[in-house]
């Protein structure tokens, strides 16, 4: 077997609620989705036909990119060389308004991924999709999956109903911490409110760029609300966030904290130090400078070799060719991000059957 290389972010696609998920819904929701034609919950963030949503050679003849297990196996494992991969399902359950419907769809997604993906390939793991719209139901879903160690993290979107540090979410983070599940914050929006502080963007391109700032806001929220003081074992993984914004963001956070920490006296050390301990980032996209010296600078500035997690973002089109590792990354980082860091970040990876 090849060396351990854990791809922390791949995306199997749900075909539809009335098709893919139907067998996994209870009778009430089966009847509801059929009689009311509740379907087509692909997120506005990722229109399936958009180039970013699927690299040309990873698009099946029929169906959405990521919908065909054998194709995903060929791409993520054979072509890109992963030994294991974590499935993050981006279907619209997390954006549903009706909390009961959201919970039913999240449960169906998790049952589907367990039955049709995890059970068919021992190299696959998954994040638990949760209805964060209703924290009590989100906790129920975490508890339901907790005994299945093939679920290694909890998936939430970068742009939801409110910032993730807010206290009404704390019981969810408590459940995650208890079960050694990091919180995977993935790019994507519920479109409840404008994706950026300046309003609604015109373009998907513009929206995608604004995600980076939403991730930054989530980090500040988690830190200043005191989530990592309350849940010291909790780790948060930023998925598909981009990476190179991190250093200047850390410096500004430290500077701001030094100036206004009187407001948040429980935050007793520099935000950047808290980030290095609790925050991890997947490496696609990296959004790097064009030259090796620039990349080396960025790594030096971040000041940690433990924060990076290998990812391909398959089938999203982030790069061409067979190498998902961003150009110019120093070898010391590459060797840690493929195995050591993921194993440390997702402790349940070592537990799974």
């Amino acid at each position, binding site marked *: 077997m090849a060396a351990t290389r854990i791809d922390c972010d791949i995306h199997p696609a749900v075909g539809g609620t009335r098709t893919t998920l139907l067998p996994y819904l209870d009778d009430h929701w089966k009847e509801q989705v059929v009689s009311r034609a509740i379907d087509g919950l692909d997120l506005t963030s990722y229109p399936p036909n958009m*180039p970013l949503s699927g690299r040309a050679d990873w698009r099946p003849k029929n169906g959405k990119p990521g919908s065909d297990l054998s194709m995903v196996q060929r791409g993520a494992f054979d072509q890109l060389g992963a030994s294991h991969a974590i499935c993050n399902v981006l279907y619209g359950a997390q954006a549903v308004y009706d909390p009961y419907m959201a919970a039913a769809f999240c449960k169906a997604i998790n049952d589907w991924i367990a039955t049709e993906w995890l059970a068919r390939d021992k190299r696959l793991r998954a994040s638990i999709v949760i209805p964060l719209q209703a924290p009590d139901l989100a906790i129920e879903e975490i508890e339901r999956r907790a005994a299945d160690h093939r679920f290694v993290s909890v998936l939430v979107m970068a742009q939801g109903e409110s*910032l993730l540090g807010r206290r009404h979410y704390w019981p969810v983070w408590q459940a995650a911490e208890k079960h050694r599940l990091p919180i995977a914050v993935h790019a994507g929006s519920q479109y409840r*409110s404008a994706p*950026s*502080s300046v*309003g609604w*963007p015109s373009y998907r391109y513009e929206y995608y760029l604004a995600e980076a700032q939403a991730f930054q*806001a989530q980090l500040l*929220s988690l830190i200043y609300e005191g989530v990592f003081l309350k849940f010291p074992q909790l780790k948060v993984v930023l998925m598909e966030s981009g990476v190179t914004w991190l250093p200047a963001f850390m410096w500004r956070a430290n500077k701001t904290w030094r100036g206004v920490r009187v407001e948040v006296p429980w935050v007793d050390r520099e935000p950047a130090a808290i980030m290095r301990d609790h925050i991890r980032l997947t490496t696609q996209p990296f*959004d790097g400078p064009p030259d090796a010296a620039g990349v080396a600078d960025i790594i030096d500035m971040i000041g940690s070799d433990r924060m990076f997690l290998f990812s391909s973002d398959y089938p999203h089109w982030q790069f061409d060719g067979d190498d998902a590792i961003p150009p110019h990354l120093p070898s010391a980082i590459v060797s840690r991000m493929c195995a050591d860091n993921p194993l440390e970040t997702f402790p349940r990876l070592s537990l799974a059957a």
Partner: protein
Amino acid sequence: MSEVIDRPMLEQEAPAKSRLKIIDCDIHPSLHARSDLNPFLSKRWQEHLKTYGDHLRTPYIGTTPYPRSSPLIARRDAWPPTGGPPGSDLDFMRKQHLDPLDIEFGMLQVLDMFIFSQQNLEFGAAIQRAVNEWQLAHWTSREPRLKAAILVGQDDAAAAVAEIERCAKIGQYLQINVSPRANEPLGRRRYWPIYARAEELGMPLGIHVGGYGGHAPTGGGWPSYYAEEHQSNAHSMAATLTSLVLEGVPEHFPRLKIVFIEGGFGWISSTMWRMDQHFERFRAEVPHLKRRPSEYVREHFWFTTQPIDEPDEARHLRSLIEWVGVDRLLFSSDYPHWDFDDPRFAFKTPLSEEERAKIFNSNARALYKL
């Protein structure tokens, strides 16, 4: 990590004769009281100001929902001995800031009265005119080092253009200011009449952080703390930069010059890399862009330096400056606010004479034709 301790040479260590005169691109003058504007308002609007006041998309009529760490965001030592709020006393501003720091020119940035965010557009138009007149009457006519901006509420573009015409005839203003937190991202076409006029007049477009645009200060919702809200200003600037570039504002107005004020500059290089990284995949969505996004940034945008980033290692600030480009940077102090940058101490990394001259003086001199 480097073995060499690259101790920075601070600006105050430079030989006295080489000390540059400073162009400070962000100074905040204040009203003593809102009634200072009465001489510039009609009876109706004087009454309106007194009776109804602002209508802003924020919960309180008299203060911010994110209380600052100090009153009026100000340095504790910036309260004039004669009374009034920080920034309201010209003599004290001279004594505390302009004279000792060798400020050759100072660009006024008025934040009072929330000109960019007034929901009642007619009131907004009256107020913007009053504030623009007040800048000349109380500041620039008394102190030639200080330079005014034409402040316009961007969400009524017709009224904004009318005010630009009025002020341009007077000829005392050096830039045209709008807010990054508008009703919509600033790249959208409703704002283009303002940009068209700025380009024709050869005046830079100034965009200072702040404003109440009606959206949460972050793309993830409303933060609880000032610490979060303060940093979100840089996020708004990044989103504004991408909006302007992606909508094709620099493509459409090739002579337009845009100044980002008080956003700092740490976030710019990664924003450019990210724009470029994803350009090819999204190109079909923005066919009006003829060049890579970063090329527009490097030609059309300038960035004031405060609040300057403070990495632990001086060499990291050095990299940041090189990535953005020393030609794009304009020194600013943000006087009299608490997060003021002192030109003598702000750059904790060695700069060459030429770089210092550009950042502290000649970039702004050329841009504003001083």
